[in-house]
């Protein structure tokens, strides 16, 4: 899969002209900054629209999608190049299976990502899910445990199914901001981002609507109920994240396995042993001696 031939990014052609020009502008900007490759990792729960988002960005049906079942059993990297610029998008299987974090899927992803550099990480969830729960936190935690806290510096929260009518009594903007705030809170908790770091590591939220029934504006761009064309917006956010100055995440063996707990504190072992001998063994020996001295002897002895 890694040796997949990089195809010409043809899909870009079928975007509306406005979107095309916007995208090309952004790509040019990246090239200016000497960024010729962009690797995007897409992760999230199953069935939230990861693959659809990938397809939307590429502009073609690059990965199979189905409304009713998981079509992505293993990670897939879609690579497209355009004018010397390569875009890699890694689509992954859903991280939830049977109400638990699917460690196996995570393992697969890790193995797949070995020796790749991730420039941008898209955490995908649905906008129209009203609540966040412990599972969301566990997913975020699992991701953080696997790839480190750093990944959230390049992280973008993507909320799909953005074209919805908000619950009664809420405006669309209110709803989206509250939903994203709730999700961000969970992400911060799961990623163990400390309060003081929140400002520095603010995670952008992007709304997405992959459906073909998405509303369009006068230049035929897919737009959100708020009126923004979301594809250029998403690519804009991605570009911003790449250019924000932080480094991409190189997934190597060490990152996957985490710090080896077997090596931690190894140098201290001689000291620990000495401590054990002088402060525990000696002490117990002393109390045994006390016991012997205090032992109630029979009268005859």
């Amino acid at each position, binding site marked *: 899969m890694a040796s997949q031939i990089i195809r010409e990014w043809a899909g870009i052609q079928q975007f509306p002209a406005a979107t095309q020009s916007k995208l090309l502008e952004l790509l040019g900007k990246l090239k200016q900054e000497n960024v010729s490759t962009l690797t995007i990792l897409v992760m999230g729960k199953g069935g939230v629209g990861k693959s659809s988002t990938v397809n939307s960005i590429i502009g073609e049906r690059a990965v199979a999608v189905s409304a009713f079942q998981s079509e992505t059993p293993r990670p897939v990297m879609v690579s497209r190049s355009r004018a010397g610029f390569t875009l890699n998008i890694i689509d992954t299987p859903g991280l939830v*299976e*049977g109400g*638990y974090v699917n*460690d*196996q899927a995570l*393992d697969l992803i890790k193995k797949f990502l070995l020796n790749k550099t991730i420039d941008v990480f898209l955490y995908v969830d649905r906008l129209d899910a009203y609540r966040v729960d412990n599972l969301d936190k566990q997913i975020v935690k699992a991701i953080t*445990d696997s790839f480190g806290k750093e990944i959230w510096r390049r992280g973008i929260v993507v909320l799909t199914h953005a074209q919805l009518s908000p619950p009664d009594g809420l405006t669309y903007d209110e709803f989206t901001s509250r939903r994203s705030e709730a999700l961000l809170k969970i992400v911060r908790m799961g990623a163990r981002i400390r309060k003081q770091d929140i400002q520095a590591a603010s995670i952008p939220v992007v709304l997405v609507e992959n459906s073909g029934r998405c509303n369009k504006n006068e230049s035929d761009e897919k737009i959100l109920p708020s009126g923004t064309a979301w594809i250029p917006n998403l690519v804009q956010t991605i570009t911003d994240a790449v250019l924000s100055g932080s480094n991409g995440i190189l997934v190597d063996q060490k990152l996957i396995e985490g710090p*080896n*707990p*077997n*090596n*931690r*504190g*190894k140098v*201290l*072992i001689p000291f*620990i*042993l000495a401590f*054990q001998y002088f402060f*525990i*063994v000696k002490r*117990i*020996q002393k*109390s*045994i*001696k006390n*016991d*012997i001295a205090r*032992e109630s002897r*029979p*009268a*005859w*002895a």
Partner: protein
Amino acid sequence: MASIAAHGLAIPVNRSHRRLNSANTTSGTSVTAASLHPLTIKSKLPTFSSSQNPKPSFSNTRDNSNIFASKQLQNVVKTSAAIGAGLYALSSGVSNVLLSGNGGGGSGGGGYGGGGGGGGGGDSFWSKIFSPAAIAGEEESQEWDSHGLPANIVVQLNKLSGFKKYKVSDILFFDRRRGSTVGTEDSFFEMLSLRPGGVYTKAQLQKELETLATSGMFEKVDLDAKTNPDGTVGVTISFLESTWQSADKFRCINVGLMPQSKPIEMDADMTEKEKLEYFNSQEQDYRRRIERSRPCLLPVSVQREILQLLREKGTVSARLLQKIRDKVQQWYHDNGYACAQVVNFGNLNTKEVVCEVVEGDITQMVIQFQDKLGNVCEGNTQYPVVRRELPRQLRQGKVFNIEAGKQALRNINSLALFSNIEVNPRPDEKNEGGIIVEIKLKELEQKSAEVSTEWSIVPGRGGRPTLASIQPGGTVSFEHRNLYGLNRSILGSVTTSNFLNPQDDLAFKLEYVHPYLDGVYNPRNRTLRTSCFNSRKLSPVFTGGPGVDEVPPIWVDRAGLKANITENFTRQSKFTYGLVMEEITTRDESSHISARGQRVLPSGGISADGPPTTLSETGIDRMAFLQANITRDNTKFINGTIVGERNVFQVDQGLGVGTKFPFFNRHQLTMTQFIQLKQVEEGAGKAPPPVLVLHGHYGGCVGDLPSYDAFTLGGPYSVRGYNMGEIGAARNIVELAAELRIPVRNTHVYAFAEHGNDLGTSKDVKGNPTEVYRRMGHGSSYGVGVKLGLVRAEYAVDHNSGTGAVFFRFGERF
């Protein structure tokens, strides 16, 4: 009238009511040591198949006591009998030893019950002696003759017919000084062997009178018979009690091993001057005797009590001396000095009463080996091996004590080298007042081998048992004990369920034990053990949490060499340190080596990409490490309930030798406290106290930690109410438990609460098996239970899922 020595009053040693042999009788037979029942243990070692002592000898203790009850009627003046008394107590003590001890010889169980509970049995024993039934037994069959005289006349003893057997209807003691008869509760009655209803000849009555007269208790004593109308006679003993001038000092001396002072007949023809000289020389002799005597064991407090008694009474009377004697002897016997006896009171008619005691000094300690037939033979065991087990108190020059004897018995028994042990004190003929302690040992067979077989029929193809699938299995074991007579031993065993194909599940063990590493004479008690072993255990690390159906098991096979040195500080506290070299192989259900744990996928499939099972990630690890374990245990049993404190610290220190150069420090500290909540009286049959048990266990590892060495939480010895490892497997753990035990009848009920926590270190085990198998990493439980013999029945509620279950477990949690 008896001749009384100028300074001494000889009190017959056999008259104490505290003594077994206190009653007089006409027959002069003495109980010899041979007819007594010494302290004995016959053990049947469970592993020793050819032991020829299936039934321990103490099972007939009850009978012994009966024999004794009749024997004690015989007049025993010799000291040997006094030892006999001790011996009885010893043999009754045996049941005690075994009751509390190793449970050696399960078949003896019925016997102990009959023994009537050791020391406690003494009381009933005494009541038996004084009960008339015991006495009646002897004379019952004898005919008696009527006196043939008119009724109600008083006949002097010498006027009675020498050919007749008189039946004595009643006995009266008449105190001439007070002019009244004394009650039957008076101590004089105990000196008498005559009993109302008994039949005696004139000679017997005369002998009785003579005994009384020579006792030194009386200045004058007469025996008259009063005829009764029914042909029987009533005996009246009129006496004048001896008295001496009042004393205000008391001294107790040990005259054991010194020649008894013998009253020298005074020549009636001596002049006054000669007499005076004679008295003076005697006085000097006595003073010298006192000087030469050794101080006695009698504590000052008892001496002071006696002094008090002396001062209260004023004049020293025979009865007072008797009382003092009883008191002194009582103290000795209460403290286990079974052979001690008051032999004489000296220095009477001075300001000081000197109580001469023979305490029972040990003059010799003999260790004897016996063959199967009980003949003395040369033993294989070296003497120092036995000798080092003997308490100091049993050595030559010390005073013999029953308790020391029992201790010796227990200690020797714990060597597990002998099938029969007797500790037998007997009087030293050459040394008056001395005791020879004989230890008679029957050795167990040195070599033994055992083969036990079993056939298992396993289902063949199609689930049907076929002939080819019948598997012969079993155990072959051998043992060579007591090499060089130094208690060194080699034992080995091989177990397999299929001898035709033993490579499947061959379990073997070969062990060499070398005690007395510092030399058999060195009091330091270190034992070297080297062994070659293998074992197979189900790993609790690869266990599912609640709600996880089935985790494919991982078997951990260990095979290796081990050498360690154990130093015993006390019976329970010890320090062990040594080297372990082992190869660990992890296998799956079908015995294939597996490098990683398996897990069941939600889809139902099994994937073998779980946490790594070994450090090398190949399924086979080799490592060498040092292991040390120090145990401090001062627990003891109070009425059958354990009370005290137990601390164990264990550390495994990796040496960096082995696969992937494992270097680690794995340590655990366990602290258990059994707190007695109420003071209770100790003794057989008394209720045990309620006990609060507090338990803490910390385990941690720094450095390389393969999953098979991870600490697991949950299980009957970790957190009850969970399965083994159900809570988690972690690098550092903490377990806390509290249990309250309330005695109910013969057993106890208990309530407990326990908690186990991985301290967030589950993730520090490679592969995080806790999370992979969906375990919480921490958990609590609480419950109640009851102890039913060896089985604990308990209801425990697991706090993670909130459900409870009833468990039956063997053995103790703590």
